């Protein structure tokens, strides 16, 4: 009798709980995942519907980005955005979106999750596409009226895409 009760108790837990050994946690629903997951893969997986152009992005940049990043992406208290991979050598390398960032998807993902600094998450999907387009246009990577969206953004090959190598350590002495 005791065994039966114990067994039925375990079974009823199993219906609710996800983990087979310890019977804790609940099954994540599609809604749980859709509401929380904002990650964007370098192949564009996860990019939402929406689009924007550099011309639209310039307006948003003026009101929400310029204060920290300077006029036309030149940099101020925070980093500027303009540069070329050839500027990564020498005594003061210029690490920017144009010179250093290997994936345009990273720019979308980071602005979407972390910017503007004082109100991250404030920008709409269209606005994020537009600001990304503006920063890429400052680097002559896209045209002023090119539409960036879930198809066109991951197709961009950033100038420093091939600028990264794997970790060879231990490397010294």
């Amino acid at each position: 009798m005791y065994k039966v009760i114990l067994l039925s108790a375990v079974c009823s837990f199993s219906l609710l709980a996800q983990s087979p050994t310890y019977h804790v946690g609940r099954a994540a629903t599609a809604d749980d995942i859709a509401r929380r997951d904002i990650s964007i893969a370098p192949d564009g997986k996860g990019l939402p519907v929406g689009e924007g152009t550099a011309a639209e992005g310039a307006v948003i940049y003026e009101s929400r980005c310029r204060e920290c990043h300077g006029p036309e992406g030149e940099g101020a208290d925070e980093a500027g955005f303009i540069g070329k991979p050839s500027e990564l050598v020498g005594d003061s390398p210029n690490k920017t979106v144009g010179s250093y960032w290997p994936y345009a998807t990273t720019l979308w993902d980071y602005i979407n999750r972390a910017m503007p600094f004082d109100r991250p998450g404030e920008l709409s999907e269209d606005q994020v596409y537009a600001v990304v387009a503006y920063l890429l246009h400052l680097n002559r990577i896209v045209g002023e009226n090119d539409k960036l969206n879930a198809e066109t953004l991951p197709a961009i090959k950033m100038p420093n895409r091939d600028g990264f190598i794997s970790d060879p350590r231990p490397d010294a002495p």
Partner: protein
Amino acid sequence: MSDEKPDPRSSRRRFMALAGLGLAACQGGPEGPVADGGPRRLGGTISPYSERSKYETSARFMPAVKTPEEASSRTPLHEAQGAITPASLHFERHHSGIPDIDPADHELLVHGLIDRPTVFTMKDLKRLPSVSVTRFIECSGNGSTEWKLPSAPTAQLSHGLASCSEWTGVPLRLVLEELGMKPEARWIIAEGADACRMARSLPLEKVMDDALLAYAQNGEALRPAQGYPLRLLSPGWEGNVNVKWLHILKLTDQPYMTRDETSKYTDLMADGKARQFTFLMDAKSLITSPSGGQTLDDLGFVEIRGLAWSGRGLIERVEVSIDDGETWADAELEGPRHPKAFTRFKLPWNWDGSAATLISRATDETGYVQPSVDELTAVRGLQSNYHNNSQKSWTIGADGSVSNV
């Protein structure tokens, strides 16, 4: 009946009064008249949570910055009294402030390439089998002031982005095996619940080896500044992948190339190429006393003290030089040694009042020897910024002052 028995309390009270007199006679002090044996004032009461003595002032270094939500504070390693860093002095590196999270509302979503996507409450996680481990956490930028010339005046400023704690939580391997990984899963994306939802990609191999879902530090709940109520502990790997306020884990077939693993924590070489996914923190040692900014007041006995650690495992040996690297002596290593944790070392020394340059170098259990800064820059150039684990020297002047030269 009762008055036939001696009152045990009264005899105990007499004993304590005598002992107290003896103690007062030994210690003296403003609260206790000593020679005349007069009355003494009572001390403080019991309390629910202790503060340190008002005479102690050791504190994290706070930089003067415009945005203290996006900044780092440094552990006072020059005043370290042991291998464990108090949680209150553990270094901080935040990207968009410390969130205020009610653990009753906090959930961990595990999804992606997994058979049973699951939401865990904190109560769920605390029911699972638990472990406690002593491990350091170090920002990969620790020591970045020392690439070109020794420039930070103190050990706190040069090396204070490292701390060591006992962490308690659930091995992540246990959780992932419970939920069943898809065969194509290779990476895991860990995301925090801070305002910027900071995210990093980690190879699944690492998290299956020794990552921990940590909810406690040094015997109590994590501090908010250390990720309360849940952080990822990635032992021996750069601080940034020990994601605080952890709320999402996603199993994937590829790294997601987040900002912090592309434009930020990558190491630029002299040829313009950058090393990526440089997770490991190599062996390092630091003389904490005497160190920059301190002064030797007296000739004679000095215990040279320091800390050593390696992301590859145990510290096997620490050598100390008092003559700028001409000769070396083995320091005593204090046990118990834990892998990927601070290990204290000590060497007795007799200071004769002449100028001296002190250096330490660590060797870990893999045989890796901590290099000099010249050996590192010969390979990496001067712009790699992160992962400077080179030997650190302090120079003692004839006046006893210690400086970073």
